[in-house]
């Protein structure tokens, strides 16, 4: 994680000195896209993730109900009728996985939105304002990083299970997303702060300021767009992280509650009889694995696409 910067630092000098192609740094988005598509892992990852999302959206076409039980068909192994078998209540596992995927992916996207909102704000204010504001915000960030996050997540959801409020009842999608989001914005804050620290010293920012641009305009129009690369990369990784957090929490029984399926609580449900009916454990976990690995590959591809130095190192030009 930390080595990335060192690495580019060490070769930056050679790169600028040797070729002098500074414009490589300000690539138009088409070039980023072209480089992204050249990354085989990222391409396969995008296809797999796209397929997963499509399948999840088409889940309603399934002839089976994701919630209603059908005791006659309980614990059927995978067959043509039930491609992934059925669970202890006779519900079609594939249907439940598709509906569970909606929940898991929604939580993932919501967490990304929440962490972006908190992290980018904290990071931008911290990096742009500097001084004691920076100091206070960064100490809060450091303190949050030292939290044993899973333990706190479990505590929070134990408590929230007792709370009855509109919108937040019984650990629903929104509650779980907020809880996870509150515990994972710190990487964004640090990333954005670091970007702002360098960017605010740039001449064009001084120029914009002296032309009378307000602070908010400078931050939103001049600095933030230039920090977009790392933010996008981190967002994809955050998506994978959020999916794994939600499924872990639901696996332990503290996340999304039955009968609403999520990939995590399907695995949790399987725990009672997965030894004799292994498909109950194999398929939901496989979905989590596929989602995470494709998201990670996409993140990797995006990082290479946004960071020309690294690509050059890979090709062996530096």
């Amino acid at each position, binding site marked *: *994680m*930390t*080595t*990335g910067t*060192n*690495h580019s630092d*060490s*070769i930056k000098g050679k790169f600028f000195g040797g070729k002098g192609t500074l414009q490589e740094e300000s690539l138009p988005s088409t070039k980023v896209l072209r480089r992204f598509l050249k990354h085989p*892992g990222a391409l396969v990852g995008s296809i797999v993730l796209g397929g997963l999302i499509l399948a999840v959206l088409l889940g309603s076409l399934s002839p089976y109900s994701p919630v209603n039980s059908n005791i006659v068909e309980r614990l059927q192994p995978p067959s043509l009728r039930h491609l992934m078998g059925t669970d202890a209540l006779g519900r079609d596992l594939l249907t439940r996985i598709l509906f569970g995927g909606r929940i898991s992916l929604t939580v993932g996207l919501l967490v990304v939105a929440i962490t972006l909102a908190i992290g980018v704000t904290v990071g931008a204010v911290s990096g742009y304002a500097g001084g004691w504001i920076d100091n206070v915000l960064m*100490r809060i960030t*450091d*303190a949050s*990083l*030292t*939290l*044993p*996050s*899973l*333990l*706190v997540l*479990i*505590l*929070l959801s*134990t*408590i929230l299970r*007792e*709370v*009855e409020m509109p919108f937040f009842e019984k650990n629903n999608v929104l509650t779980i997303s907020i809880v996870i989001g509150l515990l994972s914005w710190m990487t964004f804050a640090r990333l954005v702060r670091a970007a702002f620290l360098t960017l605010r010293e740039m001449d064009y920012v001084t120029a914009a300021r002296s032309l009378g641009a307000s602070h908010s305009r400078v931050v939103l129009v001049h600095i933030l767009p230039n920090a977009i690369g790392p933010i996008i990369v981190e967002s994809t990784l955050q998506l*994978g992280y959020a999916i*794994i957090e939600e*499924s*872990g929490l639901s*696996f*332990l*029984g*503290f996340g999304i509650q039955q009968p609403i399926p999520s990939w995590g609580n399907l*695995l949790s449900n*399987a*725990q009672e009889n*997965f*030894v*004799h009916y*292994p498909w109950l*454990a*194999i398929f*939901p*976990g496989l979905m*989590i*694995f596929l989602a*995470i*690995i494709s998201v*990670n*590959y996409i993140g*990797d591809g995006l990082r290479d696409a946004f960071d020309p130095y690294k690509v050059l190192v890979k090709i062996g030009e530096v």
Partner: protein
Amino acid sequence: MVQFILRRLIQAAFIMFLLSVLFFALVNLVPGGPLAGYGGGRHMPPEQAAILRRQLGLDNPLPLQYVVWMFGNDWMNVKTNATTSGTGNGIRLGILRGDFGFSYHTRQPVLTVIGERIPNTLYLMGVTLLVALVIAIPAGILSAVRQYSFFDISVTTFSFAGQAIPDFWLGLILIIVFYAWLKNPITGDSLLPAGGILTIGVPFSVLDALQHLILPVATGALGWIAWYSRFLRSSMLDVIHQDYLRTARAKGLSQQAVIFKHALRNALIPLVTLFALDLPYIFSGAVFIETIFAWPGMGRLYYQAAQQRDYPVLLAVLIIGASMIILSNLLADVFYAFLDPRIRYS
């Protein structure tokens, strides 16, 4: 340096104070109060609940409760009997002196409950991390030295996959394969046990202990192997591109001397910090692995305490866990300065 450590210690103490207030407030803000889970959540007659609240001091204002929880009440005048009006010094010592109260579930002192579990977690996580490092460090070095070789590509691919496999899923899969499917050819029993530290009712044997270790360690280690081999690979690649390594080669040093004496030493330094930063994930790994493999450690204790809403235990594990993380971060910073003389704290 001393000044730096002192400043960090004060900072750490302040953060711990804030966290303790936060955790304490959270637990006491639960609807129904912290007693909601007392006695397995059975309904309690209101009079009895009132007596219990007075006994546990839960009828005091929250700030006072916090002070008692933190510093004890043996130095202040409190009501000693829940029903009569007698007063005297309290008996609680407060968490600063190691008194975390009593578990609502087992009625044992929390510290005793935790004390029984800590060695099991240290044992499991220690072996897991040891196995992970023993595999990841050579793999990472070789991968970096032979960049883009078949070996390197395999390691990189594996580490990508390894990081994407949730440990709670891997644990279930390993149980399916090694407990349900594969059988010992001689006895016909399952090849490996699906849980526990030792077989109950059988005299202790090293073989038995090892058999119980294999699956939980494999489950826990895979992710760490993936993460550390990947990290060490990029750390080594960083170092390999440095000028002083070219100098070392130009001096005519052998490849081995260059890699092990010059490159590896420097590549390992970031691992120290990484290790400290990873402690929270070691905790969460312990929760999953101990729950799946019925391993009587801290992680499973926390999981059970959360299910039973045993708040004194939850609070104690959180406070101890957070202190360990903060302390290890501090140690890593100090240690880092010893390892890398280029770093000076001002």
